[in-house]
């Protein structure tokens, strides 16, 4: 299993505040890797750096063996890096269908319509509401739309930022079930979550982020039974 995404010594600043203090993370082809940590630990910053929408002050990011550290964000999507962002960020006034179609903005040809069908099969509620403005969807439906939109780019690695945030427990379970299904279909996933228990339970490997640094990394199961993780994140 080759390494798909490799991050080395990554640092990033918001003005004078350092959000990331030298992060090393790798994601292998076909893996489901979880990154857990408290609010403000730098999880979203890391994902935004990977997508190229937040400036990096040091370190490197390589994708499929190629250095993409200086590559503009919009040029990373065609390489296969696609993100479902924190807070869903759907195009509120535009229809569900337009949102999905824009997910495939970088693609051309008839396969787009086929993928759209696949998304509707995976999330039937989106098909029912395809002509409605995305902003009228419930939180859970918007989350499904955000994930489906990211998948429409046919990513080689799917970045998921807090997919369970603000959702009712039943919906959280549904979203995580979707993530497992995607993984089983062979999608490489880098999952960022505050919900450490649910994320580590389905992950092959996990990283724990604290105030901008990776403090622990191990297999998902090992992290789940790690005393420090239990105490700090699982409330056990």
């Amino acid at each position, binding site marked *: 299993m080759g390494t798909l995404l490799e991050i080395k010594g990554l640092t990033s600043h918001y003005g004078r505040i350092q959000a990331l203090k030298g992060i090393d993370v790798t994601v292998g082809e076909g893996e489901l890797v979880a990154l857990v940590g408290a609010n403000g630990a730098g999880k979203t910053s890391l994902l935004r750096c990977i*997508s190229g929408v937040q400036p990096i002050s040091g370190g490197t990011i390589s994708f499929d063996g190629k250095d993409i550290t200086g590559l503009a964000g*919009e040029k*990373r*999507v065609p390489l296969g890096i696609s993100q479902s*962002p924190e807070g869903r960020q759907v*195009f509120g006034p535009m229809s569900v269908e337009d949102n999905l179609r824009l997910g495939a*903005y970088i693609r051309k040809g008839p396969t787009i319509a086929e993928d759209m069908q696949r998304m509707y099969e995976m999330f039937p509620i989106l098909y029912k509401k395809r002509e409605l403005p995305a902003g009228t969807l419930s939180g859970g439906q918007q989350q499904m739309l955000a994930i489906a939109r990211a998948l429409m780019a046919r990513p080689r690695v799917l970045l998921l930022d807090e997919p369970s945030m603000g959702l009712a427990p039943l919906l959280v379970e549904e979203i995580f079930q979707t993530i497992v299904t995607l993984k089983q279909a062979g999608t490489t996933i880098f999952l960022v979550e505050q919900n450490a228990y649910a994320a580590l339970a389905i992950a092959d490997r996990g990283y724990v982020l604290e105030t901008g640094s990776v403090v622990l990394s191990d297999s998902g199961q090992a992290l789940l039974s790690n005393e420090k993780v239990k105490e700090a994140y699982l409330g056990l």
Partner: protein
Amino acid sequence: MFAAFLQYLFSGLTSGAIYALAGLGFAIIYNASHVINFAQGEFIMIGGMASATLVAAGVPMPLAITLAMIISMAVGVALEKFAIEPARNADVVTIIIITIGASIFMRGAAQIIWDKEFHSLPAFSGEIPIAVLGATLMPQSLWVFGVAAVVIVALWWFFNRTMFGKAMLATSHNRLAAQLVGVGVKKVLLASFALSALLGAVGGIVVTPITFTNYEAGIMLGLKGFSAAVLGGLGNGGGAIVGGLIVGIAEALASGYLSSAYKDAIAFVIILFVLFFMPNGLFGKRGTDRV
């Protein structure tokens, strides 16, 4: 009575159509960047001045018009590349001030390149007025209505039926998400300036046979287009069109029934009224977000 009213209405609709095009120009740039481009009026002036002087120099009219549109778009692109883009990390207010500076610069340059005289363009299909229910309508006014309608339909098609148009809309709704699906927001910004400049130029060209133009004609047209955009709700394309027609008709009626001295004041009274009593305009979105 009715004939006079109809006469005012025709003249109001004619200038209203131009304000609508200018208002759409404001809306497109505002949507792409949240910047209000106070050089929008200068695009109108450049369209009018360039076509008028080219025709006067003996260039056939269709070619002159095409060239004037290209020149105006080139100016719009240059404005974005050399004045707006280098300041992309600055405050929106700073960028707005840059556009005011750019508009002063363009007026100065127009004085040097052309002159301070008024210029005109021959009417596209003659000057024989058409009698309508006791009022008269100039054929050029029909050109203004027709061209404005075609431009509006084309814009609607662009923003609702083409992928790049949808990407521009998507960027205005959520810039981060647009970047994450691979939309190049720099390209969107550049396109918004080119498109707004084109709209301004088209308006300036079709109206020049009626109103004439000179190096500072853009000030008033720009400000009235701005009133149109504010009245309709900043960033709302349909609103800008309705706003433009209302401003045009209101000022034509005011100058007809009150005094022509008040003509230019009307647009500003409308701006003040909107800002005091309905800051979101007629169709603007409310300033609230679901979190």
